[in-house]
């Protein structure tokens, strides 16, 4: 294992988690950027599916600790998208910005779907509005932010060799 690369990946993960708890509340957008999803997705493609699931679970649990009413929903959703991203990483080996953006978009949308369905708080029109309007918008913004961060962190985050 290349320890330098691992340390860089951990550093990038920590930076993204910090951004989630500083930049996101500072912006205060209605469709916020989900830096935790970006962090989990970028980490998941560098580890095995089991480790990705564990990373997703821990990250989701941290996020859930601030929303006790939906405790576990974030952990479950993050576990799912982390494992799925790790299994599907072969698809995104190509260093293509559009593919990465699509990767972030699908990951965030899938996270929202799993989270909202597990949370079981919304129903009917509210649920449809959330999943078909706000979640795609948030996913799109997360994808744009993910691409920008990927370009900025490219010197740090080099894709793992096949």
């Amino acid at each position, binding site marked *: 294992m290349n320890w330098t690369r691992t340390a860089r990946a951990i550093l990038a993960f920590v930076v993204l988690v910090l951004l989630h*708890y*500083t930049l996101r509340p500072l912006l205060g957008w209605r469709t916020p950027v989900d830096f935790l999803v970006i962090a989990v997705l970028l980490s998941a493609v560098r580890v*095995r599916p089991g480790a990705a699931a564990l990373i997703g679970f821990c990250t989701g649990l*941290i996020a859930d600790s601030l929303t006790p009413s939906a405790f576990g929903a974030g*952990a*479950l959703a993050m576990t799912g998208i982390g494992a799925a991203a790790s299994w599907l990483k072969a698809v995104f080996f190509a260093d293509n910005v559009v593919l990465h953006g699509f990767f972030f978009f699908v990951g965030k949308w899938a996270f929202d779907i799993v989270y909202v369905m597990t949370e079981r708080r919304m129903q009917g029109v509210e649920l449809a509005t959330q999943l078909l309007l706000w979640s795609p918008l948030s996913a799109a913004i997360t994808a744009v932010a993910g691409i920008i961060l990927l370009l900025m962190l490219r010197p740090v985050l080099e894709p793992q060799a096949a």
Partner: protein
Amino acid sequence: MARAVRSGTRVDTVLLVACCVMGLLATVLPVNLREAIAGGLRRTVVAPLVSLQQQAERGRSAFLSREATTSRLDSVSLRNMQLARLETENNRLRALLGLARQLEWGFVSAEALRSFPIGEDHQRMLTVGSNAGVEAKTPVIAPEGLVGMVLSVDPTQSIAILWTHRDFAASAMSADRSAYGIVYPHLSDSRTGEDIPPERYLLELRGVAFRTALKPGTQIVTSGLGGVYPAGIPIGTVLGELQTSEGWARTYLIRPAVRPPDVSNVIVLLPKRIEGQSLERIWRSAASADSAARKIAAAGDSIARRAAADSLRAAEAIAARRVADSLARAGATAQPGGTPAQPPARPGAAEAPPAPRRADSARTVRPDTAGRGRRP
């Protein structure tokens, strides 16, 4: 190799299933257990992140509320400016009270309103007229000194000219009576000396005997000659000598004691007060008009203090009477069976007997405080 891959896949699957099961379990945990786990995370691992989030949200709130904060600050500043103006006005009114106390009789106080706000700022409309005994050519004074003279009088109001008016003139002298002259408004700057800047709101003391030299800072007061202004009203202080073509007399530039913008409440001297009366004792032995004004203000303060003490004594007497009345009523209600009521207590709470205690008053004592008094 294949076994290692299969083993790795099995571990991945086990981890994934375990995470999913734990996630599902977390969603169906009892609320108290869920809150306990979440609270433990918040207090340990997530605590720094929560702190960061709070600071970020606080920064965003501060950023969003900056306009409201600015407008609130502006309002406070505006109110502060108004407070300063009110304080100044209060000081002037107190000084006016002091002057009235010094004068004792033969005057009326009035508000000086700006009747000509545009262009002409050398007149004031006074809120007293002939009904109050005011006549034309009576002097108008303020705590600092001479303001001007009444020009015309109506029954309820009158118009006065300030010393800045071009028709203003007053017979004046130095405070030590060593020099006499006539004070006019300083209207032209053509005769101004090099050291004295041309200003509209200054006075000139003309006709001072050539042999008499006045030093800057010398106080100039009314001389009482001419019968319009009684002697001793401060007019101003000497700034310096003006260069004139007249070889037989000197002319001095005077800094007035009263600033026209400060003229809002004035005192009009009535004709009886002017006849043969000198006002020197009011501003006598004062080194300058400012110190005289301070003394007059101090007199106003003593009046205010005395009024406050009087009102305090009156309030205490009223309170004592109320206590006595209530005690008398309480005595009457405590002895309903024809027993004569207690005589009314004398005023003074310290001398009043204790009020009779109600039979059920013990119920109103809190159980936790009832026992405190019994402890040694």
